[in-house]
């Protein structure tokens, strides 16, 4: 209890230093929470594409009905094929019109004849997709183009990995800066209270006795900073959740699972406490030498 009282006393007696420490911790955890949520959103996008194994085969114009049917039969012959949808030129036009209904200029210029017919093939085993893509790409007389999810996923993987790396570097830099600032602030506080420490030591206080209130101070900054930083990020993201999810439709970029937020919060609070403790430990080790 006396340690809590002493810690509160230290925080209260140098409010600007304490506020700076809490503020820098908040900034650090704002960035960390944002990184965690973005990373989770990107994973959701990736997962969406990965769990929808699909290949789209555009066929050349002018093929007769028998050739189209034989292609469909060939596709149906592959194992693990879930569904084959034939999108005729007319249907392709309907889809195009639906997608561009807000822009009549675009729809007026397009007719069914300029759009290619296609097969959309869904499979239950994604491994079969590459086989279909490989075999059909050889039929250059009948097949115009093949769009295979693998390309999209590979591109997305490159981008998400890049975004995650940049995010991780920013988060690590912020944690490092925060660590040193907290350590310096604790050091300044120790210097300000050197008489108190000296008197306490003369009264018989052990080194740990005088250190523990400063260590608890670092932990307090970590706890408050992580709670407030995470809290601000979570409430902001949840406030804009619907807008963000509409943009990424049908993917839920922002999770609605309360357990997810609880786990992130817990992890961040523990990390905050650890950072605060280690930073103050360095400060204490460096400045309390008597």
């Amino acid at each position, binding site marked *: 209890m006396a340690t809590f009282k002493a810690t509160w*006393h230290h925080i209260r007696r140098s409010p600007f230093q304490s506020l700076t420490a809490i503020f820098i911790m908040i900034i650090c955890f704002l960035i960390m929470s944002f990184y965690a949520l973005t990373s989770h959103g990107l994973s959701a996008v990736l997962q969406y594409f990965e769990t929808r194994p699909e290949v789209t085969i555009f066929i050349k114009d002018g093929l007769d009905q028998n050739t189209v049917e034989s292609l469909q039969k060939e596709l149906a012959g592959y194992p693990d094929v879930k569904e084959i949808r034939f999108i005729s030129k007319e249907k392709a036009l309907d889809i195009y019109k639906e997608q561009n209904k807000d822009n009549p200029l675009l729809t007026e210029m397009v007719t069914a004849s300029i759009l290619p017919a296609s097969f959309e093939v869904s499979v239950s085993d994604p491994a079969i997709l590459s086989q279909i893509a490989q075999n059909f790409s050889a039929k250059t007389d009948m097949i115009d183009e093949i769009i295979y999810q693998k390309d999209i996923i590979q591109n997305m993987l490159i981008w998400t990995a890049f975004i995650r790396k940049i995010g991780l570097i920013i988060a690590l830099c912020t944690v490092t800066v925060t660590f040193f600032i907290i350590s310096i602030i604790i050091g300044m506080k120790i210097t300000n209270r050197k*008489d108190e420490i000296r008197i306490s030591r*003369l*009264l*018989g206080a*052990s080194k740990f006795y005088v250190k523990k209130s400063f260590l608890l101070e670092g932990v307090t900054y970590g706890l408050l900073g992580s709670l407030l930083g995470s809290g601000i990020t979570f409430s902001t993201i949840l406030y804009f959740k619907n807008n963000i999810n509409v943009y990424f439709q049908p993917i839920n970029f922002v999770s609605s699972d309360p357990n997810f937020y609880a786990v992130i919060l817990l992890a961040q609070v523990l990390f905050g406490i650890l950072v605060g403790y280690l930073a103050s430990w360095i400060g204490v080790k460096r400045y309390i030498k008597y």
Partner: protein
Amino acid sequence: MRIVFKQVSKNFGFIDALKDIDFEIKSGEFAFLFGPSGSGKSTIIKLILSQITPSSGQITIGKHQLSTIGKKDIDSVRKKVGIIFQNYQLIPDRSIEENIALSLDITSHPKDKIQSKVDEVIKKVNLTTRRLLYPSQLSGGELQRASLARALAINPEIILADEPTGNLDRQNSWNLVKLLKDINQKHHCTILMATHDVDIVKSLNKKIIHLQNGRIVKSKKI
């Protein structure tokens, strides 16, 4: 708790702060360290508190020989020593009550009994109306009584007073000395008081360790 110095010397570079000091203060005894400024009084107090180590010789406090004990034992020796300084050494941003409570917390006094002990010693030094004030709000005499209250709170086996009357007027000096004498008689704790005030030393029939230039020139009971 007795204090024994055997052939203790302390040098600061080429300067001999203390040279071959020998004395023994028995448990429950009241003794004066008497001498002018720079004679080595504060050095002896610092050596007893293990703030500094002797260049040679042996210091024994109770059962502990200071040259051989570990850091933990130094803390435990300090916990049995009440200290009073000329400049009071109270923590400026804590109230008198909090300053006393801190020393009790350091000595692991039971938490539920800290307040009653604080009340008791504050009453003993007659500072009841000043208990919530900060050191800067008290007079010199009151500060020295607060310092004494802090020393008394831990039920010390030794009280070390380093020029406690140095900043006090005559009346407050006498009051403090009287308080120390009463404590010595009632609680039988060893008291070692460093002073250069010859009137105070002569007023009490106590042991005197007379220092000059780091050497004992007289050690006797008046």
